[in-house]
């Protein structure tokens, strides 16, 4: 009798469990809203803490290379020439082909000048474009040049009439500028908004 009970038990459990499962799928078909979004047209909100592309506040950076040393994959390249406290920048680049977004470059920074933005779109058709230069300017800015000349002049014993002009401007630290930088990152990565 066991076999016969199994036989009919199989039929009934197959039919009932299928019906129940179909009930679940039908409920989803009719009631549940889709959880996916139409990606390029809409996006999920990205939390503030998101570890995305980097930006650099070049004004603050002192070329201590601690971030490069902290990097587990050696993707940060920094090159600058020191003229006293003024830096002549050659390179501050991150190779996003290597970067693993581990955030270890952020905490060591003594002047808190490197940050991670919430930008996460990295895809590009040009692999070379993935080596991202974070610098807003290279070499010496005019005011740096001027400051250097004044310093040299002061060293030579000459009196400098206009000391105020040598103060570095606060340009490059405002929020708008940050946004502009992010836009520049995206532009350089060859992406459209």
């Amino acid at each position, binding site marked *: 009798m066991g076999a016969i009970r199994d036989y009919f038990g*199989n039929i009934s459990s197959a039919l009932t469990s*299928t019906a129940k499962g*179909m009930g679940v*799928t039908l409920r989803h*078909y009719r009631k549940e809203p*889709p*959880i996916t979004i139409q990606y390029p047209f809409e996006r999920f909100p990205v939390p503030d803490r998101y570890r995305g592309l980097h930006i650099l506040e070049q004004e603050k950076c002192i070329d201590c290379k601690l971030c490069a040393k902290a990097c587990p994959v050696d993707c940060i390249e920094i090159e600058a020439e020191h003229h006293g406290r003024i830096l002549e920048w050659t390179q501050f680049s991150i190779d996003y082909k290597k970067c693993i977004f581990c955030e270890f470059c952020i905490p060591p920074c003594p002047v808190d000048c490197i940050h991670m933005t919430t930008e996460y779109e990295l895809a590009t058709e040009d692999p070379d474009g993935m080596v991202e230069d974070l610098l807003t300017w290279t070499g010496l800015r005019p005011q740096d040049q001027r400051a250097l000349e004044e310093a040299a002049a002061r060293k030579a014993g000459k009196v400098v009439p206009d000391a105020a002009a040598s103060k570095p401007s606060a340009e490059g630290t405002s929020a708008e500028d940050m946004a502009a930088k992010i836009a520049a990152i995206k532009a350089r990565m060859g992406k459209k908004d």
Partner: protein
Amino acid sequence: MEALIGLFGELFGLEGTLALSAAYAVCIGSILGFVTVYSMFAIWMERKVAAHIQVRMGPMVTGGWHGWAQSVADAVKLLFKEDIIPTRANAFMFWIAPAVVFCGVFAGLIVVPFAVGVQVVDLHLGVFFIIAIASIEVIGVIIAGWASNSKYSLFGAVREAAQVVSYEIPTATALLVPILVVGSFRLNDFNTWQAEHHWLIFHSPWLAMAALIFFISSLAGCKRAPFDLPEAESELVSGFHTEYSGMRFSFFFLEEYTSMFVAALLTATLWFGGFNLPFVDSSAWHPALAMPIGIVVLLAKTFFFIFVQMWLRWTLPRLRVDQVMSMGYKYLVPWAFVALIATAVWDYYGWGWLPL
């Protein structure tokens, strides 16, 4: 068909064989067109049904409204894809297999009455013809699996052969049940019988059971989940069409969806009243009115069953190959025979079931 021959005679003065050929050409062309458009729609529908069951959206971009043109775009893409024949495949067999597969199901459609008078040939053995011609498909699949020279394809083909041949027994037996009641193989007779009496599904519990058995075994015949063993993408990569791409692959797709259509259409015609509306007697209507309504009604029923097929597919896991066999032989075949004999007894005594 006769109407078309007459039309050609009137319009172009064609007569005899010439008119016949022209009429056939038009019929075949329209069925081919129908099959193509239907398949595109069914694929789009399958994607949407799957997506909504799976809390997704499915195609949304192509063509604008809910991605309606996605299938068209896919078809165009498949047409322009490189036609790859594996180096060590048997090129001729590889080439001919999709055509063989497609011809079988395609030919089945010519006996289907879509509405009053909308039918290519009104065969006396319409049901039998569909069952017989649909079996050609298996040969094509075996050819495809063997010619691909891939082990996965071979496995898929052998599974398909075993499965489809086995499931033809319950399919055909279940089909015999309504045939027994109506007393005809002609598909049109089912429409008229059900218009005069009642839908066959309500005739007796045995007919309802036969409908269920037919539906399940037709799923196996169409290689739909949970019986998609020949494809079984998690076991056999893609089964018998692993090596196919582009246009040839799309033929297998067309075949799958067309055989789904045929199965759903048979269910609708044989058990669910065909192109008749429930509670409405349409036999006295003018053909110009009855024809479009009949087509719409039949297609609505058919698409409902296609929807159920999809719904099942996205609900159930796949059976194992021996379980498919045991289900066919241990469960479906005996119960199909039970339904057949019980219907014979039922009808002999003229019992009624539902107050119809």
